[in-house]
């Protein structure tokens, strides 16, 4: 990351922390203003909604400009058009640099849009040029695409500090490693070494804030791949082997490895939760609980204890019950705290939490598309009526 951007990000982090302290009544407005004055932010930033809108409309404008360029240069041939798009990508990378540098933009939407299109164009056109000049086979082309994407996105993440680029680059590296001779083994071993090291780096004050976030995000990606490697369903279906080109059904007889995977499917998410609780890291706890949920669904697939809807409702009810129990346990401690944990929403952004609630509700309340009954269908007169609805026809 550019030194001036890293410095601005550090100051922004302090100001944001001060805002959350004020919201939690840990400091008063006077103190927050003093902190703001001590850590001035020279960047032009937008709020989350404006940022997303500006990002979207910037993409609309830039892609339309590329569309016109495509129409103009299409007559000159595909190679010329590809070369023009490559130059376009380099130009957008330069524009991103200018915005982050002299124009002092950060979290403004436009620089993220130019950065995104720059990497897409550079990767796309280079791949096109490679595939048309040397005509490699499918396997080489896929490997080349993964390597190229990992390098370009990794460099972009390092220079501009976008965690999403780092995440996609890490995914490409893991998929590439799965295409080697010991793919599953590498997915098991590498995260065990990589995740703790990256999380230590993510706590280092010497790193720029954006790089710290990227390190934490890559650590989480590594843990996801560890879970995929040891997941019993992934073992049975040969998911990792599919990435190596083996799409035929793999017959796996019962073996110690399968038993190990079955146990690890349960243990890896629980260990992640325990690790998160031990290190007070919310991202690990969240990821661990998602893994626990996935493992419970896996258990339901292998062991038919009840219909899926019963298992889901039961699981949800147990989760709510556990949350209430934990809350009551923490609340009953001295100063509503036990072992350094509290159920109080301290220093958390209420706007962000509210947005999360809205997003979760939209996702869960949105019904799946239902087939429209064809004319001629005659039901037997199903009964309906609120909670007592019956599915009998």
């Amino acid at each position, binding site marked *: 990351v550019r030194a001036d951007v890293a410095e601005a990000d550090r100051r922004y982090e302090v100001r944001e922390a001060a805002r959350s302290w004020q919201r939690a009544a840990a400091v008063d407005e006077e103190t927050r203003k003093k902190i703001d004055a001590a850590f001035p932010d020279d960047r032009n930033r*937008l709020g989350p909604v404006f940022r997303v*809108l500006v990002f979207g409309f910037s993409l609309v404008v830039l892609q339309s400009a590329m569309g016109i360029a495509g*129409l103009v240069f299409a007559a000159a041939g595909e190679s010329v058009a590809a070369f023009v798009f490559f130059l376009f990508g380099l130009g957008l990378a330069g524009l991103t640099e200018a915005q982050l540098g002299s124009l002092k933009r950060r979290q403004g939407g436009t620089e993220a849009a130019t950065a995104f299109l720059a990497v897409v164009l550079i990767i796309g056109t280079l791949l096109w040029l490679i595939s048309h000049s040397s005509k490699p086979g499918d396997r080489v082309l896929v490997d080349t695409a993964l390597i190229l994407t990992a390098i370009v996105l990794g460099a972009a993440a390092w220079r501009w500090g976008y965690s999403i680029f780092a995440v996609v680059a890490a995914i490409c590296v893991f998929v590439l490693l799965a295409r080697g001779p010991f793919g599953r083994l590498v997915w098991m071993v590498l995260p065990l070494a990589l995740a703790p090291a990256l999380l230590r780096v993510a706590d280092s004050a010497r790193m720029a804030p954006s790089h710290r976030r990227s390190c934490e995000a890559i650590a989480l990606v590594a843990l996801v791949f560890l879970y995929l490697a040891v997941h019993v369903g992934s073992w049975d279906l040969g998911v990792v082997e599919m990435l190596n080109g083996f799409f035929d059904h793999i017959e796996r007889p019962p073996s110690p490895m399968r038993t190990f995977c079955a146990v690890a499917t349960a243990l890896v998410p629980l260990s992640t939760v325990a690790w998160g609780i031990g290190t007070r890291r919310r991202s690990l706890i969240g990821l661990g609980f998602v893994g626990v949920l996935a493992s419970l669904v896996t258990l339901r697939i292998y062991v038919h204890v009840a219909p899926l809807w019963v298992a889901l409702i039961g699981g949800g009810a147990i989760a709510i019950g556990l949350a209430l129990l934990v809350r009551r346990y923490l609340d009953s401690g001295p100063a509503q705290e036990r072992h350094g944990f509290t159920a109080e929403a301290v220093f958390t952004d209420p706007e962000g939490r509210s947005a999360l609630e809205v997003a979760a509700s939209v996702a869960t309340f949105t019904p799946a598309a239902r087939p429209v009954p064809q004319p001629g269908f005659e039901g037997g007169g199903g009964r309906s009526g609120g909670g007592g609805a019956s599915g009998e026809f």
Partner: protein
Amino acid sequence: VAIRLNAAVTGLLFVGLGYALVRTDRKAHFEPLAAHLGWLLVLASILSGIGEGGSAGAAFQLGLLAVGSGLAVHAYRAGRFSLFGMGLVAAYIGLTALAASAVPDPFLGFLWFIATGGGVLVALLVAHHKIKARKVES
């Protein structure tokens, strides 16, 4: 048509519920959820009709433009930027669908996106600047 009408009416009921929660000061913290879900349903129900042919499609496009613009203006004045974003995007889709059906040429289409997209970008940055200035004043 029935599903669309169902969704629109349900959406309006949700918006009304949110309004009532605030007016009666009962569980007012649920208002954002009700308002966002309600407007999402209303806009989605209109959006689902813009692909229809003839005057029906044009009516839905116009409707999306009108409802989206109204929501965007009202939400901007109330300082509710997530609803403002929903309204703005809906209005832009409505306007663009109207323009696309009138001018099917790809070159003019790209020019349309550059001009209108650029216009919206400038308007957004100006609006943000004004909000920031208003915050500093207050």
